[in-house]
């Protein structure tokens, strides 16, 4: 009885899709155009991150991230989360970025889920692409 209901439901959905002229699509399928669009979205955020990395207004004293970290070098995104001895606990990259914003940049920390923080993390991580993940590494 139950099986019959399901069968008829499926038939109804397929019938509806045919009526609407749509092709059945499985959840895990995506097209080349999808990938291009998603990648463009990602690179836009990376680009935004690069702008913030070199933006004198990210902090309060005009110092920019790139002054000490050209091409985000020596920021080690692949090693987070890790124990940061000076903070005394395991932290994530956004927490360390906020440490830099507060200290050398003398600014106000960003909410860790803000688009700005996402962009900074995206940029630093993108500059380290291809380097193997080593969480916890000092």
């Amino acid at each position: 009885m139950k099986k019959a209901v399901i069968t008829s439901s499926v038939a109804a959905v397929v019938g509806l899709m045919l009526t609407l002229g749509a092709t059945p699509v499985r959840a895990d399928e995506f097209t080349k155009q999808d990938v291009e669009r998603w990648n463009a979205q990602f690179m836009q955020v990376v680009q935004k991150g690069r702008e913030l990395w070199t933006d004198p207004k990210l902090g309060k004293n005009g110092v920019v991230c790139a002054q000490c970290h050209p091409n985000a070098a020596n920021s080690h995104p692949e090693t987070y989360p890790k124990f940061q001895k000076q903070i005394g606990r395991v932290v994530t990259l956004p927490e360390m970025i906020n440490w830099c914003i507060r200290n050398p940049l003398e600014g106000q920390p960003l909410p860790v889920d803000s688009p700005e923080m996402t962009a900074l993390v995206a940029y630093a991580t993108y500059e380290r692409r291809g380097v193997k993940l080593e969480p916890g590494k000092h």
Partner: protein
Amino acid sequence: MSNSYSRRGFLKTAGSVAAIGALPVTLVELAFAKPAQNFTFAYISDAHIQHIRAAKFVNNWDRGLIRAVAETNLMSPKPDFVMFGGDLAQLATKPELDHGAAMLAKLNAPLRMVMGEHDYYLDLGEYWSKLFGPQFYSFDHKDVHFVVLNSILTFDDWTHNRWPTPQQRMLEMAGLDNPNGSPFMVGEKQRDWLAKDLAKVKKDTPVVVFSHSPLQKIYKGWNFWTEDAEQVQALLKPFDKVNVVYGHVHQIQYNQIDNISFNSVMATAWPWPYPQSYAQAEQYLPKLTIPMNRADPFFERDATGWQMINVNTGRVDLVYNLYNNMSRTVGFDPKLGHPVDRQLQSVALEPNRTHY
């Protein structure tokens, strides 16, 4: 050697004022067969004094230069002169150059200046020259011929035609990793001047050349680079003993190319990662160089420092005094014919020294 500069004596003096192990200047001693001819000079570089607004400047960078000047003044024996290796300012503005010049004015030894790109690209060095004089020159001091080059020039088209305002030109060159920048060069005019200048110098006279950028090619992406390095090196080739001392890189580097020893000096402002830590590009850090310890950002002055340099028999020996870190000595080894780190060259690197 017994008649070389006594660092212990110096530190004893300095220690009475502040508990320190390191100073962000470079002390240079020239030691010759006749001890009476020995002398020392100090080297401070890359202060990057950065204006915020009104009378406010970035405190962190101010502290680096103030400390270097104060500690240089404690040196004993007194240096014959002090070199400043370029990048006194961050964006070459009058407030920055004036503020930096006021700090340097507290030095109690004669000061000689090298031009850096952060001093230059706003007004092409005009205000800097008003304060400090010519942008390239030479002088003789106790049997050594010193040459100062302005090595941070670039293509005329980039300098004169590419940017709508001088401010933007300065900002574009100030970003170390900015792809809109342009490679440094000494240029034909100065190379012609250098050839004439060196023609008067005997070939066995020790020659020490100061430039802001390395007169060798390490990593173009960050302008650890001078485009016409080979042409400048060729002019220096006829001399028995040539030393090039450069700033810009904010880290310890050393190398030997034929007869020329290369040594970098520390910044007082902030350290830079070695180019090898940028995963996306090839670089050519000289194989000889053992990197400095990786900087610890929780110590504001870590990985800045200063060096004492002996020019022993016409070759430079640098004693790097690094804040919050072990001192380093990089000196010319006559047997090997190139600079070596006296303590570390034969020792395997500890993990905390690695840059990645």
